[in-house]
């Protein structure tokens, strides 16, 4: 069946089986492979994308259910080719990753957190990413990246919705 998806600000029409997950649709139909399959049962969070700004598990949702929502994937965050968003740059500054597999989901989760709370405490950052499993880092440099992004964001005096 046909589904209308608004992905990274662009209207896309996709033909999918009703049983196709949003994750498979993004990866296989739209070739947005920055969202990753980790467990496909909603635990690891590697498939996280934003739906109307809120983090969701793309593996637990059918593509047809996403009809009408604004979907943001990692590919929608960079301001331009070769450029990084403030959060992406902060992850580079602290090396908040290793293998990079959980990273897109982690960054989207961080964007969602900072959009609703520009000054999260350490505990709030830890809580916000607790549904995203990272096997490489032990989380320390991820938490620092998000705290750094928040600090820089406040320094820039940007509107909270645009980290």
């Amino acid at each position, binding site marked *: 069946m046909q589904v209308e998806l608004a992905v990274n600000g662009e209207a896309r029409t996709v033909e999918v089986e009703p049983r196709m997950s949003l994750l498979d649709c993004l990866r296989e139909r739209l070739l947005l492979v920055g969202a990753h399959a*980790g467990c496909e049962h909603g635990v690891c969070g590697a498939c996280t994308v934003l739906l109307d700004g809120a983090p969701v598990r793309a593996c637990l949702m059918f593509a047809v259910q996403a009809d009408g929502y604004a979907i943001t994937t990692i590919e929608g965050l960079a301001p331009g080719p070769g450029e990084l968003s403030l959060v992406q740059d902060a992850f580079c500054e602290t090396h908040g990753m*290793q*293998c990079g597999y959980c990273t897109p989901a982690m960054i989207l989760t961080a964007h969602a957190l900072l959009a609703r709370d520009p000054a999260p405490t350490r505990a709030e950052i830890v809580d916000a990413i607790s549904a*995203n*499993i990272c096997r490489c880092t032990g989380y320390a440099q991820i938490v620092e990246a998000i705290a750094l992004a928040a600090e820089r964001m406040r320094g820039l005096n940007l509107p909270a919705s645009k980290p």
Partner: protein
Amino acid sequence: MSTPAFRFVSADRRVREDRRFVAGKGCFAADVVLPGTRHVALVTCPHPAARILAIDKRGALAMAGVHYVLDGRELAAATQPLLAGLDTPNVARRPLAVEVARYAGEWVAAVVADSRALAEDAAEMVRVDYEPLPFVLDGETAYATGSPPVHAEHGSNVLLDRTFVWGEVEKDFAQSPHRLALRVTWGRNSTVPIETFGVLASWDPWRELLDVYASVQMPRFPDQVALALRLPGSAVRVHNDVDVGGSYGVKRGIKHAVLVGYLSRRLGFPVRLVEDRLENMRGGDGHGPERNFDLELAFDDAGVIRAMKMRALDNVGAYAGRSPFQLGKPIGAIVGPYRIRSVQYRAIAVTSNKTVQEAVRAFGQSPTNFAIERAIEEVARHRGLDRVEARRRNLIRADEFPYLIPSGTTYDSGDYHAVIDKVLARADYAGLIAERDRLRAQGLLAGIGIAACLEPSGANSTFEPLLNPKNATTTYTESCRLNVDVGGAVTATIHTLSAGQGHETLVGTVIGEVLQIDPDRIRVVRPDSLSSLPSQSPVGSRMAIMLGGAAFHAAQKLKARLLAIAAHDLAIPPEQALYDKGDVFDRGAPQSRRSWSELVTIAHRHFHRLPPGTEPGLAFSHVMQVPTGGRLPDADGRVQMYPCFAFEFHLLLIAIDPDLGKPEIKRYFLGHDCGTVINPKIVRGMTMGGIAHGIGAALYEEFAYSEEGQLLAQSLMDYLLPSSHEVPPVEIIHHETPSPHTVFGQKGSGESGYLGAPAAIASAINDALQPLGIAVNHLPIKIAQLGDMIAAARGEA
């Protein structure tokens, strides 16, 4: 020793790989799809052991979009068994079971269809008739005579049973006033990367070439795939520019690659297998060591240990590749950081009807460290010593390096006491004890955890000849090629895949350091396996030493050439030429110089200006031999295992809710000495990740089996990976004792943190439980078990 001044080494520079990952532009195996790719799903055996009587493929093959159902018999007829580490020819390992399946979840047939979803549907339509067979799960039971052999042709379940004696063990035992014995056990866990294993293979019948894109971390991977498929090595092209989404040892993937490689040749289109989480955990052959240690120690009144006997029995599962070697690596650090003068070590590997074991971070060293550390604590208890003091009395002192241990390995360098001093000072050890006692006064069980241990690094794989007499491997290469193009741009190569270790940053930093140019100007690429120099893979904490070493020496060769060209062109004696950030000048007349671009032009275009006999162009490669390597083990099994030994000292405070059994890590300090740190961000990340993994291994993660032989953890809801809530902040205290064997004094750090965290957490729990008179000698110790133990000890059964 004064620290040499580095420009880029040790500087807190960014990691170049990160830019692509934060943009979602990594290239993982599942991101590679060639036109016409078909997908595999697997039919798995539901029994721990069963004879395969019949496979009925008709239902699956009748479905539209289903192309093929492959069984083990067809695959076995066309391929060789997978390479085994030990000399055990009757333990054949193949991608699909042939006649007998030997663990629940073993792959019995592979279905190929237009989509993965369709392949999964069709896999459910394949009917297999089984005759269940007797099975064995427990390692000691498998070892006992009379247990059902997993491989009848092999005759027993024993793959390896060798006893080493190094030094006067019996005499030292007889002469020691005190002895103790204990059993320590390490449960089956693994690294469980977030990316499952994935592989795409595409056979080109006109070029007679198999292209392989895999998320792999496996020594000799292209070679092993070619051998199994009966192809020359030059017919298998493995693409090294695939990003691996975490591995930490387990992504071996030979059976997966052989399976899809065969299917692609057989069917004439690209075939892909990306494991789902269940396939990964149950049939992906990626479990870690499951080990019983029986320890005996002989020591004196002061708690000084003279001799140790260790029996290690490892349950490797139904088949074996390199996993029994995980009993071999710890021989290179069998006494840990301690001065134990004689050792008896018995290494036993047995098969069982469980999922196959593969390499896991630290390759058997972390369980061994846990066993040694438990034993030290028992010595401390026996002698009434403070646990830090008991360790101090046995630690090798800084003035004793290089230090030869009984099993024949010489430790390179270290200053263990200095590291411990630093940590105790930073943590305020007395204050930490006071904090523990305050928590106890509040009704909590609280304990201080301690572990001192080593990270052998620079893998040389000497356990291969040690445990397999038919294998005389004495080198374990890593390589780098360096090219300066006609415009003066520098490109360097890596000849293996990476799984987040920052190797491109490593190579750039090292070459930038040698050439005195900005590392960011150096392009780092990964040629495919057919364009590659001899290379293994990032195992055994080796890449800083081995890839860093190869890059260093290639850059030195380039620098030497530039000096020779300039000296010749300036008509000065070579020793009078000085290199300065790419330019070369006459030390007697500094204004007389040749710039980088002039030298590059001479090398590439002006043959008439080159020193006679010089190859034009600027292309250099270096194939690195492992420092201190190159010798076979002696008859007593004495051997130089790894070249470098990093040290770590863990100190933590834990509080356990006595009613729930829930432990909470209140403080965590780590003293870490891995020699010269090349990139602080990378080393810190590795170490923190290792501690997180160690917390999982100690408290949460286990591949447990039911009595019926079924794996109980089949999803990430049953196999618990530490989240951000479970990993506390850790204060890392650095110390640098350079290694004399490496180009910058670096040692490995890829397994740091994991080497000691499980031992340290067990130590903390045991300190907390000590007032109840109970002890934990098994990991993992899960919350429910801990709660039950505490309740029983308090008489609340």
